[in-house]
């Protein structure tokens, strides 16, 4: 886990398999929490065809990665500064072609991104749901893989399926699990323990526990106001959990 050096950013890919488990909300708030710790953060909207990081953050974007891929536009000129030290690289919404990038386009995109990430301490990628090509590609490009799951059988199955594909086909072995929307800490711990058991039994890999985010009504409220709950409701249970997770991530260096 010692990916981050003095000059290289730590590239973290956040995926979930299933949609709607709070992956984007978690990623946006983690970016805000890392920024508060004086880290320079780049948040890449990896949901290339159905982007919504900009929606969750309430920012207006005029340009996005589609222009980089289709017109060769410099991604540095697309970056949106949310607050000092926190930048977003937006993607397009409602463009099916972007959700299915070709092999050449994927290589072009990551090569282009390599050119702008060095100025940051952390690069967070909020991927699309599912196990499509771009999801797998971003997970392989990143050095650190975070998988978000909730105490829901469909979420657990999809999260496991994602890790199984990444492990079986791409030899990825290190996963950091974040259990979201747990009714109680005990429930969240059970979800993690069970997932670890299945991963150990069948894939022979041991995930690490990144954290447990309790169910918190402030999360939904913050999404409606299009602001990170970490900023709007800093004393909420969710914000405290995010702060702890951000600290854990900085200690991975």
């Amino acid at each position, binding site marked *: 886990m010692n990916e981050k050096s003095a000059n290289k950013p730590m590239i973290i890919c956040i995926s979930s398999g299933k949609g709607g488990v709070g992956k984007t909300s978690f990623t946006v708030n983690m970016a805000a929490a890392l920024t508060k710790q004086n880290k320079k953060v780049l948040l890449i909207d990896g949901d290339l065809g159905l982007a919504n990081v900009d929606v969750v953050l309430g920012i207006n974007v005029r340009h996005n990665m589609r222009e980089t891929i289709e017109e060769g536009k410099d991604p540095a000129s697309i970056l949106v500064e949310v607050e000092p030290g926190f930048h977003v690289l937006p993607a397009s919404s409602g463009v099916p072609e972007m959700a299915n990038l070709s092999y050449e386009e994927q290589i072009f995109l990551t090569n282009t991104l390599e050119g702008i990430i060095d100025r940051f301490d952390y690069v967070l990628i909020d991927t699309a749901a599912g196990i499509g090509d771009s999801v797998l590609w971003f997970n392989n490009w990143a050095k650190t893989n975070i998988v978000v799951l909730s105490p829901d059988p469909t979420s657990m*199955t999809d999260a496991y399926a994602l890790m199984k594909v990444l492990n*079986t086909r*791409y030899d990825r072995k290190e996963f950091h699990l974040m259990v979201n929307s747990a009714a109680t800490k005990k429930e969240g711990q059970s979800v993690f323990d069970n997932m670890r058991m299945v991963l150990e*039994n069948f894939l022979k890999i041991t995930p690490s526990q990144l954290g447990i985010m309790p169910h918190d009504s402030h999360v939904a409220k913050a999404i409606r106001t299009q602001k990170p709950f970490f900023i709007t409701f800093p004393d909420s249970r969710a914000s405290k959990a995010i702060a702890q997770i951000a600290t854990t991530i900085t200690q991975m260096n």
Partner: protein
Amino acid sequence: MKRIATDKDSAHFFADLEVQADRYPVRSVKITAKDRSLLGLFLMDDDAEACEIEAALSRLAASFNGHQLAAENKLAANACSMPSPDQLRKIIRTEIDRVQLTRLPCSLIILAADKSEPSLVAEAIKECLHHVDILVQMNDQEFAIILPGTNLGKATLRAKTIQQANHTHGANTRMGIAIYYANDRFTADDLLAQAQAELARSQQPGAEPICHVSGIRAEDACQVSVEERAQLFGFLVKDTN
């Protein structure tokens, strides 16, 4: 000390360059004069597109005019977009290295066409290729097609497209597909042997025209089994009870 280089020195130099080129992801094309003497060695990045190579070779041909560049050298561009069978193993090795780097799979299709003009078959295949794909003519009837970044599902679809394109030109084709995944540890020769074995299987009476086996192992292995599902959320059922 001043010494004038002789033709023998040049030959040694080029031979050494060729050996070195073999170790890197580059292709080399010999530039020879009409009398078959070696004028130079053209090294190009493996990723260079056929049109770029063609343009570069045209410029080279122009600069070699004084030496009456051999006519067959004009075909070098074609040789680049369709490397020789000798280069096949080297290309596969390069692609395997790339798989390890990008963690994306690579497919190899061996195609056999019956009773057809090889150039027509090659043209039909080329219609279906992307610019990163590599086509190699192995002999009069067999072609190797390397599809970087392509898993079994996509390779099978491409094979069907190639089959259809050839069918349109009146050629019947049989194909064997092998896949190299990031966690595979076999060699270029093994991959080639797997694809050839699948081709042989496709040529058996009553067999499917497109056969594959190696990819199934990895792709099926990704399917979440009933046992895995049972363990995944069995504890939720226990808690509910």
